């Protein structure tokens, strides 16, 4: 069994994301399962640009997981997405 790739997670900390729930996501050390946490490289990013896209279907806060941007992020949704990604 080869070594599993770590999941790259980028949390947007831009103004629009931060005030609309992004601040809660920065508490990831508290709400994420340690096993999931261990399999991810989490970092902040100053803006993912999602809030400026007039055609965006979803709303801030945005998180990028392995290159894919997800909107309307909540702690629960992030837990679910990351545990799926880590345990896949």
């Amino acid at each position, binding site marked *: 069994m080869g070594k599993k790739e770590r999941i790259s997670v980028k949390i947007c*900390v*831009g*103004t*629009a994301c*931060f*005030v*609309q729930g*992004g*601040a809660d996501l*920065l508490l990831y050390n508290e709400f994420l399962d340690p096993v999931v946490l261990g399999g991810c490289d*989490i*970092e*902040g*990013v*100053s*803006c993912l640009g999602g*809030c*400026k896209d*007039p055609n965006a279907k979803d*709303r*801030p806060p945005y998180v990028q997981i392995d290159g894919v941007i997800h909107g309307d992020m909540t702690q629960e949704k992030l837990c679910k997405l990351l545990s799926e990604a880590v345990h896949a």
Partner: protein
Amino acid sequence: MNDIFIDVDYAQIYKHGQKIGGDVFLLSRNPENDQIVCTLSDGLGSGVKANVLASLTARMAHKLSFSPMDLTHSARIIMNTLPVCKERKISYATFTIADIRHEEGEEVKVNLVEYDNPSALVFRGANSYLWQPERIDLEREGAFKQEVLGHSQLKLSIGSRLVIFSDGVTQAGMGKALPLGWRLEGVRSFAQAQIEANPDISSHDLAQAIVCRAHSLDRLSAKDDITCMVVYVRKPRRTLVVTGPPFTVEHDQDLVDKISRFEGKKIVSGGTTAQIVSRLLAKPLKVDMSCWSPQVPPCSTMEGIDLVTEGMLTLSKVAIALEQKKPVRSLPNDAVRKFIQVMQESDQVHFIVGTKINEAHQDPNIPVEIGIRRTLIGRLRKALEDNYLKETSQEYI
């Protein structure tokens, strides 16, 4: 903006057991003619009575020094006005007035008037400068003793300091550690050693060091009010704050060129602005996840920039903290605290305000505290000028 900065600050410890000081320090700046007047007065006795005498004296001396009136006449008016002490049947308060003017070049003129306070000290670098003040006998009617004013006209160049203190400093330790107290020579050599050890020591730190030393000589139970003020003439410490992307993309390079050319500390406030700077300077931007609070997004790091923060939220919190004069130590470890620390360590702050509208901030779900950038910068400048006596300037891009 000036190429010279006059750093004035003071430190004070009240007489042991007193909740109000008998030494009063006043400072005013008149930006129209680059004039600073600082006054230190020591009232007879201690507590409320001394405070009334000293406040009256300091306030009068202060106001009169802004008028073209002859200083001996001013001194007579002050002494005639002071209320008489019930126990001692005399009215008495000492004072020192330093009228500091920066006219041209790299020198500052000081008009120093001293009455019965310990002599002021002047240091050029760490070297003590000695001079003989002109003595003016007031010969006032009804005076209970001979009243002699000391008048000196001094020139302070960059790197010079003027140290003024009350007799609580020179008499510290009297009868305890030192039979005759610390005395002028003791203060002089202590201040000299402090400047030698730290040639850039700020007025605040030097005044604090002298006052703390005097307090410790008094075995932490001050026998009189201990007050020290320091005037330090130096090159200004400059800071550049860049916030908001330029109105058009073509100006992005101009903005980055301005940042690169600036000599001093640099703050970039705004995610998009930081990304523009990072792209054009080819320096990676890294978010520091250890430095944030629930109200303020994390700051970032970038080579060549001293502080990178989020924009509007951080700036509005900085404006509130500066307006309310919140002490830095009471703030959480976030971008606002770091921003305010840099502001407090600067003398001149230049703002470059980008005028591009951020589409993302037009969302009605965004809290109202995200205001208009220009209004916010206006509030910041006012708070910096009024509450912290900083010089500020601004340009739009």
